[in-house]
């Protein structure tokens, strides 16, 4: 019934001339850090194509966590001040469960077919319990950045396993004789990125943490995952203060030429190639190593567009979301803001070659990226994983203790 009703209403609205030419204002919540000036260009294009709709960006907190907290506060009060939301990829499951985003199934025809145009990881993450809750905005993933000049100097191939990376790093560190040169920089502070730190080896062993909302914890694999990182630290490849390292610290250190390898998100690339960078022209990127006998895998990131369930203008908001999640906007974001596209064909687009020459190298990495556990209780799960990993890296818990605790806490959360 609703299938016919909606288009009928829209038709009726179109036929009946509006009494007053009232302008609809759509409030879009985006991060202040994700190039709002480029987003503005996309909004301008939409406004031109849709006279009568004004798009007003509401700039939110600087980090994913701060934004989530703000949205949690506002939406639990069922506030209708926001129409369109930009959400981190880890949020859709929670927003679907709390009912804060409108399902978009009816607006895209056949969801499964519609999602085929995007990178596979997003098709998974954006559909929760059969409901399509968000559409992809731009992509992100964790890459292995490396100093190709140093690898060339010591005639070393690009490592494909962690143990290979460790031995190559040690060779280079010994050869360079620089006390400050780290073999590998990765994140261990109690931040969201550290969840990926734990999951990378765990996934590489072929294990999953959460399946269909249920815990599938492999204790031995968890211990091995912790052991991998501790091993790298013990061998001197990774620094002793890994538990302090946040995402941007890795970037700053690698950019200053203080690390041979770095596990970092996509944003690092354009900064490493900037004029101030000490490693300009010496950086290359590849997918993350696998554990011995495992398969290579990386962590997906990226942001999505959703429509607030409390919006007073749902139809226009859906229109805006579909526009923002289209090929032209994805191209714009890639070109002007160096944000990875969500459409696989764009990675070989000649027009983007100038702005983002590394796109062809990035595609295979992004295509095999995995989503972090999809569960409405993700914030809880994330907190457990990040704090336990941090404790192990800081040396205040052994891998066994941490795995025990992680299991116990995750069982309580995902009861």
């Amino acid at each position, binding site marked *: 019934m609703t299938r016919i009703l909606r288009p009928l209403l829209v038709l009726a609205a179109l036929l009946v001339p509006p009494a007053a030419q009232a302008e609809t204002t759509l409030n879009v919540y985006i*991060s*202040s*850090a*994700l190039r709002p000036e480029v987003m503005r260009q996309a909004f301008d294009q939409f406004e031109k194509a849709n006279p009568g709709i004004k798009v007003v960006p*509401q*700039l*939110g*907190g*600087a*980090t*994913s966590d*701060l934004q989530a907290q*703000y949205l949690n*506060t*506002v939406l*639990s*009060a069922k*506030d209708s*001040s926001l129409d369109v939301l930009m959400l981190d990829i880890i949020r859709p499951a929670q927003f679907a469960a709390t009912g804060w985003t409108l399902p978009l199934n009816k607006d895209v025809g056949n969801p499964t077919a519609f999602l085929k145009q995007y990178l596979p990881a997003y098709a998974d993450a954006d559909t929760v319990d059969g409901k399509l809750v968000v559409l992809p905005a731009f992509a992100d993933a964790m890459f292995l950045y490396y100093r190709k000049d140093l690898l060339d100097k010591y005639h070393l191939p690009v490592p494909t396993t962690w143990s290979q990376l460790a031995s190559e790093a040690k060779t280079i560190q010994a050869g360079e004789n620089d006390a*400050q040169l780290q073999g590998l920089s990765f994140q261990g502070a109690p931040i969201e990125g550290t969840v990926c730190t734990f999951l990378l080896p765990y996934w590489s062993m072929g294990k999953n943490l959460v399946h269909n909302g249920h815990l599938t914890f492999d204790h031995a694999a968890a211990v091995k995952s912790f052991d991998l990182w501790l091993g790298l630290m013990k061998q001197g490849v990774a620094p002793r203060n890994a538990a302090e390292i*946040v*995402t*941007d610290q890795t*970037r*700053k*250190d690698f*950019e*200053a030429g*203080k690390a041979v390898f770095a596990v970092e*998100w996509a*944003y690092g690339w354009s900064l490493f190639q900037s004029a*101030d960078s*000490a490693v300009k022209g010496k950086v290359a990127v590849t997918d993350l190593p696998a554990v011995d006998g495992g398969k290579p895998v990386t962590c997906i990131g990226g942001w999505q567009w959703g429509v607030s369930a409390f919006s007073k203008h749902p139809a226009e908001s859906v229109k805006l979301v579909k526009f923002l999640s289209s090929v032209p906007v994805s191209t714009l974001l890639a070109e002007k803001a160096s944000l990875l596209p969500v459409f696989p064909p764009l990675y070989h687009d000649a027009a983007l070659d100038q702005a983002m020459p590394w796109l062809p190298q990035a595609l295979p990495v992004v295509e095999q990226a995995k989503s972090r556990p999809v569960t409405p209780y993700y914030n809880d799960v994330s907190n457990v994983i990040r704090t336990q990993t941090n404790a192990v890296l800081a040396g205040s818990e052994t891998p066994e203790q941490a795995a025990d605790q992680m299991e116990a806490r995750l069982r309580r959360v995902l009861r």
Partner: protein
Amino acid sequence: MKPLSPTALRRIAALAVIINGLFPLFWIFLTSLKTEAELTRVPITWFPHAPTLANYLRAFHDQPLALYLFNSLAVALLSTALTLFIATLAAYALARLNIGYRDLALAAIIAVSTFPLVTLLVPLFQTMRALGLLNSYGALVLPYTVLSLPVCTLVLVSFFQTIPLDLENAAMIDGCSRVGALLRIVVPLSAPGVFTAGLLAFVNSWDEFLLALSFNSATRWRTLPVGIMLYQGEFAFPWPEISAALVVGIVPVAVLIVLFQQRVISGLTAGGVKG
């Protein structure tokens, strides 16, 4: 070795206080003159190798810092005024008036402050939304007043109690009402207490971050601490730029302090109190 003279001891003590209080700010100031690249050097540098004002320019360019300053100032001044008004009345009642429930009232006021505003975030947000106050000065002035009310009331109570009763009695015999006595005798004589309470209320309000983040999210109404947080990127943390913004944020408060510290700390020397 000769024992140090009292003057020398005083100077050393003063130096210790100055270093303790100003060192972090001094460090932040030095950082605001450095470039990001310089911050990744180990061992760290203290004085910038190539001092630059670019961070200040960037700070003002990237965000409307002056607007945030103005908002913070407005909210702080309004809530300070409101706090002082309400606290003075309440403190007088508790210090002077003969009421049976005095201890209970005092305990209730203190009890209220034992509930951290952090925990009331969600219900307060709903209250402010219901009142239509979100994204306005009112959304912050009211909670900040409540935040400072207990400590200001208590400070004023203990100040009022040091004023001898004779003065008010003398005024009232001359035909002054109680409230008149409050305004004309008690408050002026408690000037240090009033200024102390005012400073406490001002800084409590200037400081606050969490409520300001949630209630006044629109750029037009944003306050300084929230604004400074926004210099962060999703991953990036530009210390030099944030340091510049911090310095800009502290300067007005520092100026206010220097101007008012004399009032806060004026002694009760000559006149008025001799019996």
